[in-house]
């Protein structure tokens, strides 16, 4: 009986001490990593893991966050929503991580979203582009930009680079990705005072866009925003030449890969410009350093852009923990909201839905290879 009371007191004291422990940082800070490390989308998960691990390794080598080392605890969710929820629970309950980086594809990221909001844990994804992942979720952030954002960036690029006053858009009205790009491009172009002289729909999966291109050519625009994936875009470029449409082509990240399906790569040469999340041949100091560090650690350059956005996700999170000087959820989330930093994928702040407002990398083609043109800052 006495013994039991004694233990009860000890436990109570211990609990009180834990609760009263100052918000200062522990010796090691545990951050959870949620990613598909095996399974059909493993290549994205591994790319994210590599980017995060690189940042953490460099950070610890510099002395960590205010002297506390950071430890990554990775859980494999295999691209599956159920596995993702289980892995999330394990990270939170067993590993007691202070924040989570993940998940990678949009399905699992959405699956853990509600629970993350309930707990309030800071969570940041490097690669999920579905709008709802961060919408109405005050503690869920991301470092990859969304489709509408890259389209408006291209409207600015058309203005800054070509002084384009007359712009045209061709899009697929049966595809959300394409519709989103087209509408945002048009909105930004109009906001810039540019004239949207043609806004033509072409159904995806079609091969014949000459009718639309003939209409567009009649309006004589200076640039044409091609809100398609690369297959249709390749057909658009080839047929534009046929109907005598002489413009600069612009597009989103879905254009990457067009150089493999177009019949004549010369048509792309300095004439097709598209936005991407990252360019490994960019010449900014941050990118050059990142590529060098990555190659030193893994023996090869990163192949998937999400390694870079993952590096930035880790950077945003660790800088926020440092700024908060604590690991309690609310303080870190608050610090993340106030992020204003420069990562390897450019300048980065968050908007009201925790989506990044950041630089886009503008690419074109030289000798049939993707080539970095410039970094378009927001």
């Amino acid at each position, binding site marked *: 009986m006495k013994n039991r009371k004694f233990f009860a007191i000890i436990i109570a004291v211990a609990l009180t001490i834990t609760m009263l422990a100052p918000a200062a940082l522990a010796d090691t800070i545990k951050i959870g990593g949620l990613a598909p490390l095996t399974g059909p989308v493993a290549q994205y998960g591994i790319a994210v893991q590599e980017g995060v691990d690189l940042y953490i390794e460099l950070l610890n080598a510099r002395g960590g966050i205010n002297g506390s080392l950071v430890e990554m605890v990775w859980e494999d969710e295999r691209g599956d929503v159920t596995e993702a929820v289980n892995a999330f629970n394990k990270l939170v309950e067993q590993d007691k991580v202070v924040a989570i980086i993940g998940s990678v594809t949009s399905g699992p990221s959405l699956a853990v979203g509600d629970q993350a909001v309930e707990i309030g844990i800071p969570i940041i994804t490097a690669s999920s582009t579905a709008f709802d992942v961060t919408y109405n979720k005050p503690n869920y952030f991301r470092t990859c930009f969304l489709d509408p954002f890259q389209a408006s960036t291209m409207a600015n690029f058309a203005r800054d680079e070509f002084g384009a006053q007359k712009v045209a858009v061709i899009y697929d009205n*049966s595809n959300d990705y394409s519709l989103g790009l087209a509408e945002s491009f048009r909105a930004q172009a109009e906001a810039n005072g540019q004239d949207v002289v043609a806004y033509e729909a072409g*159904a995806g999966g079609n091969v*014949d866009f*000459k009718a639309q291109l*003939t209409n567009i050519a*009649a309006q004589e625009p200076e640039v044409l925003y091609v809100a398609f994936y690369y297959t249709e875009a*390749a057909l658009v470029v080839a047929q534009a030449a*046929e109907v*005598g449409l002489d413009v600069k082509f612009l597009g989103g990240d879905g254009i990457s890969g067009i150089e493999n399906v177009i019949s004549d790569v010369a048509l792309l040469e300095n004439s097709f410009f598209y936005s991407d999340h990252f360019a490994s041949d960019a010449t900014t100091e941050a990118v050059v350093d990142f590529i060098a560090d990555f190659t030193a650690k893994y023996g090869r350059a990163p192949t998937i852009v999400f390694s870079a956005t993952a590096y930035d996700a880790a950077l945003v999170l660790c800088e926020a923990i440092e700024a908060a000087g604590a690991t309690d959820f609310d303080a870190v989330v608050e610090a993340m909201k106030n992020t204003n930093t420069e990562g390897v994928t450019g300048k980065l702040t968050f908007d009201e839905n925790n989506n990044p407002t950041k630089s886009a990398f503008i690419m074109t083609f030289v000798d049939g290879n993707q080539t970095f043109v410039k970094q378009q800052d927001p």
Partner: protein
Amino acid sequence: MTFVNQIINGLHVGSIYALIALGYTMVYGIVKLINFAHGDIIMVGSYTAMVIMTELTGLPLWVGLLIAMLAAMLVCTTFGVVIERVAYKPLRNTQRIAALITAIGVSLLLQNIAQLIFSPNSLPFPVAIRVPPVAIGEMTISFITLLTITVSVLLMLGLQAFVHKTKIGKAMRAVSEDRDAAQLMGINVSTTISVTFAIGSALAAMGAVLYSTAYPIIIPTMGAMPGLKAFIAAVLGGIGVLPGAMLGGFLMGVAESLTNGYISSQWGDAVVFGILIVVLLVKPSGILGRRTSEKV
């Protein structure tokens, strides 16, 4: 001027539909079979031409294109004849539905073989022609468009002459009118049917090369849509009637182009299929089709 350009765009794709429609209509005219594998013969032709043109890099473009066309015609003709012998001939005297289903099976078989050999991904079709657009007055017309329309019209005229002026053409017409009677008159029906498949497939091969030159991305399922539209063109013009297939093809192409250009691309296919429904309601035998009453 845009309007004239849209008409020309329509004639371009329409002439390709017409070439393919000829194959449908000839086969239907003779064996009363809708050969659904015909669309996939286009795919076979495109891949053949692609392989040949990728191999023959040293030659001038037009020589490469010519050789690719001949090779595609050869391969497609072989495919057409072999398919008829292996898949359709044994079913010639059974119910028509049996052959129709076999045709769908052959279509799937061809698509899957192509996927195995070439992967299901899109591949670029090599540049075949590098000639600047031709200026006619204020208009510019791409050389590919001119070439396609010219070649198609010449082939159609040639086919018309072949069917009406040669002995085998006469045999084809005879078999088409009454197979049993033709056989009794000493016409070799099997040979005639083989020749029909051969010619239809060769025209499809030409259509394939012209199609891929205009839309230079090829995938194993590429034959389905042009095949379907060409079939509709054949029905529209009057299936079994050669000039009907040509007329149907051109009408389809122009209707599609004008809808895409002036209404919405979402409606392009709907209008085309809508025209088919209207024609079937008003004149089920097609525009140039003759009303035939079953002889008892």
